[in-house]
């Protein structure tokens, strides 16, 4: 098996160092309230430029895994999830901390994260090569529709509002067109000298993810008191491992939920944890303990979160459709290294692909080791005040953005896009679809223009773009994802509208009564 062939490369000196360092940094960043995994990966992409493609991808992959797991530390200790994916962990983790079992809760969290993570990476290793064979059949029109599918799926399934998600994705594509036409070389939409080189992935990624979070951090920084904190009594690691591994049902439910949610592009990690938590509660004998400090709740949620990580990379590495916003950032990191997802990655750059997947597998073991160690120092990590965090992230964003192309214009673009995104977020727009539009826009345009040229020599554009079972399948999937999301949001809107009058009926008599 190819994985075994490339495994020694994973354990070679430099890559192993990156794995260990990346796991520790990722866990600390994940544990820091206000730093999401997506933002952490986006901020650290510039560090990968001077590395070879394999090491760069390993760093980003291990950061993805460890930041998701690290987010549980603040969820458990101060009731603030380090990442949206850790919301479900908070439900039982924080009550456990209140009951004086914070260390146990953290141990369960990292052990179950590793179990779920290993299963998710195994799915990645065994499923990706099959999907890659499908991608071999892709020509320009199929690649165009795949890019569109990525945007529609993230836009519709990954956003709170379908229309706003799709609108964000489409605006992202338009932004990516600023600069030069990739085929004709003509300059367009250059309204300022700073836009002459177009809007590249890194300033957009860092700006859209980091700057709004900085502004959110400063929103309440002055009044922040750091929340409730708990002492961490020492407890036996061995006992925690045995207890955790005995909870087979919670681990299976969590891992399966994570894998399924991860493979569906755009579903995102936050719902993996919540679905797993909900399912585990339904099948548990201790239903009543959920929400009051039930370890099964933590085990299901955390195994789901990390199982989702590997699974979300399956459609990303094989078809170029990221399974989560962080996977979309990772896709950006892949493209910047000159690598394109799909068959080429597994033939011409097989060493990169397999070493990366092997590294993800090893990182799950490191996650337990480093996670158990971090559990001890977690109480210090979460004490970093918001005002220091905001200043540090702003500084890192400036240095990271400039270092990529030595371009001051990139810094201006990063700051401007980030500030605008903050206001966009206040009105229900999310950065994920916009970023994906910026990443996939050039791919969509290049393949659209190539299809146009090929179609002129053949049967015409309409037949070329919509002919063949693969095109029909991809177009259908695009329509299906949008239609399903529209239907779901319509239903939710109707439910809300039905609920509002009932609510008023309940409130008004009381109000009248009070008035009398």
């Amino acid at each position, binding site marked *: 098996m190819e994985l075994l062939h490339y495994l020694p490369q994973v354990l070679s000196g430099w890559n192993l160092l990156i794995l260990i360092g990346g796991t520790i940094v990722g866990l600390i960043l994940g544990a820091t309230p206000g730093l999401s995994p997506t933002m952490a990966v986006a901020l650290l992409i510039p560090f990968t430029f*001077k590395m070879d493609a394999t090491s760069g991808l390993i760093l980003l992959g291990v950061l993805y895994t460890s930041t998701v797991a690290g987010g549980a530390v603040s969820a458990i200790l101060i009731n603030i999830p380090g990442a949206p994916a850790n919301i479900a962990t908070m439900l039982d983790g924080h009550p456990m901390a209140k009951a004086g079992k914070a260390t146990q809760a953290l141990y369960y969290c990292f052990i179950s994260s590793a179990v779920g993570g290993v299963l998710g990476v195994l799915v990645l290793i065994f499923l990706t090569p099959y999907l890659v064979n499908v991608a071999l059949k892709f020509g320009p029109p199929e690649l165009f529709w795949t890019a569109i599918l990525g945007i529609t799926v993230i836009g519709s399934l990954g956003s709170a509002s379908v229309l706003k998600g799709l609108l964000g994705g*489409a605006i992202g594509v*338009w932004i990516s067109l600023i600069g030069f*036409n990739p085929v*004709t070389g003509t300059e367009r*939409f250059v309204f300022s000298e700073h836009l002459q080189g177009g809007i590249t992935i890194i300033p957009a990624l860092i700006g859209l993810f980091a700057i709004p979070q900085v502004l959110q951090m400063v929103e309440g920084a002055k009044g922040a008191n750091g929340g409730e904190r708990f002492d961490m009594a020492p407890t036996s690691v061995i006992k925690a491992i045995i207890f955790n591994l005995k909870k087979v049902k919670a681990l299976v439910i969590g891992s399966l939920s994570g894998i399924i949610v991860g493979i569906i592009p755009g579903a995102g990690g936050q719902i993996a944890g919540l679905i797993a938590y909900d399912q585990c509660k339904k099948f548990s004998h201790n239903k009543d303990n959920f929400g009051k400090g039930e370890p099964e709740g933590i085990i299901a949620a955390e195994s789901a979160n990390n199982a989702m990580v590997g699974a979300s990379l399956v459609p990303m590495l094989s078809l170029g459709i990221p399974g989560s916003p962080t996977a979309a950032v990772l896709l950006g990191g892949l493209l910047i290294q000159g690598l394109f997802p799909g068959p080429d990655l597994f033939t011409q750059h097989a060493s990169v692909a397999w070493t990366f997947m092997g590294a993800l597998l090893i990182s799950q073991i490191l996650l337990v080791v480093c996670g158990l160690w971090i559990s001890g120092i977690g109480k210090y990590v979460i004490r970093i005040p918001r005002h220091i965090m905001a200043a540090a992230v702003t*500084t890192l964003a400036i240095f990271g953005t400039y270092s990529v192309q030595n371009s001051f214009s990139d810094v201006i673009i990063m700051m401007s896009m980030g500030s605008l995104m903050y206001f966009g977020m206040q009105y229900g727009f999310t950065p994920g679809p916009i970023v994906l539009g910026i990443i996939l826009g050039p791919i969509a345009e290049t393949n659209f223009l190539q299809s146009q040229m090929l179609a002129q020599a053949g049967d015409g554009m309409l037949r070329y773009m919509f002919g063949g079972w693969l095109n029909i399948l991809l177009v259908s999937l695009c329509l299906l994802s949008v239609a399903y999301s529209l239907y779901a949001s319509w239903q939710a809107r109707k439910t809300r509208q039905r609920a509002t009058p009932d609510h008023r009926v309940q409130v008004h008599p009381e109000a009248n009564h009070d008035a009398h």
Partner: protein
Amino acid sequence: MMLTKPRQVALGALIIALGLVAASWAGGAYGYSFPRVVSLIVLTLAVVLLAVEILAPGQAEEGAISIPWGSIIPALAIFFLLLLALRILGFYVTTLVGFVVISSVYMPGLSSSRKILLNIVIGTGFLAVLFGVFTALLKVQFPKGLLL
């Protein structure tokens, strides 16, 4: 018709979409075919968003999050001043000043010279790490400007 918050958002989206359409159709046809298609898609989505908000309005309070301008404006002003000063004063000095200003402005409780001194120490330490990583290790040269 009441101009609720969701309707204001939809209207804003429509104005942006019209701007994108105008920009895409202003240039010559050569090299603009794809941007035109994209701008029309943006316009369609914005029209649908507005239609949905008019025909089946969401709750008026939906998305009506008040922006804490008092906290946000100083941060935006600091960003703007940082961008102005970066190339003039140099990256390291400007970002150190930026670090100290952001951390001091948003410090909880009353500010004191001791707390500000602590922010300067933390900022200097953080920038020393960035210098080690970017300039010493990755060999990235940042504009020095008048200072550093």
